[in-house]
């Protein structure tokens, strides 16, 4: 897989670290343990388009927000995680 990094251009996946589904923020203490179980353990694990976080460790060292089809490995969009809407 080649990931089109917004800063570095198309780069080999071996330069990147996969973080997993780009999930909403960590729950607050008041949200209770169910919310934490959900956050830590439960996954949507979609077969199809998935929004996820990748880190360009051996490049610009930026966290990226990636939309990728898990059935084909096609990258649908790559933007900066810092611009992710919360």
């Amino acid at each position: 897989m080649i990931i089109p990094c917004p800063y570095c251009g198309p780069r080999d996946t071996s330069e990147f670290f996969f973080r997993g589904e780009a999930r909403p923020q960590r729950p607050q203490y008041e949200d209770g343990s169910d919310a934490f179980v959900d956050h830590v353990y439960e996954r949507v694990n979609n077969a199809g388009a998935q929004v996820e976080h990748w880190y360009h460790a051996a490049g610009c060292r930026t966290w990226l927000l990636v939309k990728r089809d898990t059935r084909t490995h096609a990258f649908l969009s790559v933007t900066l995680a810092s611009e992710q809407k919360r």
Partner: protein
Amino acid sequence: MERQPYSLFALACQAFAGHRGWKPAWRDAAPKERYDVIVIGGGGHGLATAYYLARNFGITKVAVIEKGWIGGGNAGRNTTIIRSNYLLPENTPFYEHSLKLWEGLEQDLNFNAMVSQRGILNLCHSDEQRDSFERRGNAMRLHGVDADLLDSAGVRKMAPFLDFDNARFPIFGGLLQKRAGTARHDGVVWGFARAASDRGVDIIQNCEVTGFVRDTGGQVTGVETSRGTILADKVGMAVAGNSSRVASFAGLRLPIESHVLQAFVSEGLKPVIPGVITFGAGHFYISQSDKGGLVFGGDLDGYNSYAQRGNLPIVEDVCEEAMALMPMVGRARVLRSWGGIMDMTLDGSPIIDRTPVPGLYLNGGWCYGGFKATPASGWCFAHLLARDEPHPVATGYRLDRFASGRVIDEKGAGAQANLQ
């Protein structure tokens, strides 16, 4: 269909008749309207479940529903290692039960699954690793499982071709389980299919489950498929890498990520690797098939995938580890590589449990170690489906253990989808 037992006598008779009398080993059934139990997934686990439902509980109105062909998933893609060298008390008895079933499987199924107890040798490369292997070996022995700790001279006797004095990863010794080994993966699928079919189980191929039928109380009462609606009192999921997908049809979210794992086979060579050997300084393992090919693999690719194929960085990584362990393999050519979709749980251990949806049961989260589990997984899932309570050796494999804190963290590394 009339049962045709396999034996030396039958083989001799067929040989004289020009082998024209062999019948299909199992029935390719069309879906009926209703069953007692539907098992989704015609991999090793689904077929073993159906077989043990019939054999152990006399429940024969059973259908195994497979979207493609049986054994086309991980059952036919794995590297065929069977073993029970586990540390934790939730795991050891279960995997030992499985190994014991493997030991009698061929007689029970009347099918040659080529079970070969050629041993597994886990190598250690530091004092600390040797200590942890000693602990694991002791834990195994406490459960009545065979384990031997070898020093480097003992390893050298078995496998003189290893790079013992490697500057970075010298070989300190290894933990040997002699009763471990390999089995022929396709043979296991066909053997369970034949034995289940003989007892009346319907094996329905090219039939994809696309949803669940539920009554007003939410109870699952059947499945929607590409070949129409099929009703059942109970529905069990045994769909490995597709667990999250199928569970989502019932609105469930699971502690599972799907990842791709690759494997490789070399050209055929004369016998050189005595059993299964694993590299302790990375993640690499190798054995030699009866055909002569070196069968080997390593880590997951490391990203979520349903694609059944991987990428080149892992190819490079696995080959580098092979070279670090046994430089002689550099002269063999890789013949093929392929990938399978692993149902990676967040603690690296499987799930055999009821789900919060009544009538729906889950067998999944096998990570990359589910082949060796095939007989016991079927045995325990059949028990759960028939009795509505977990089998004594599978009580730890609960779905709610992530919420209750009773995770089974065999690797001791916390919540990650790359364990096992």
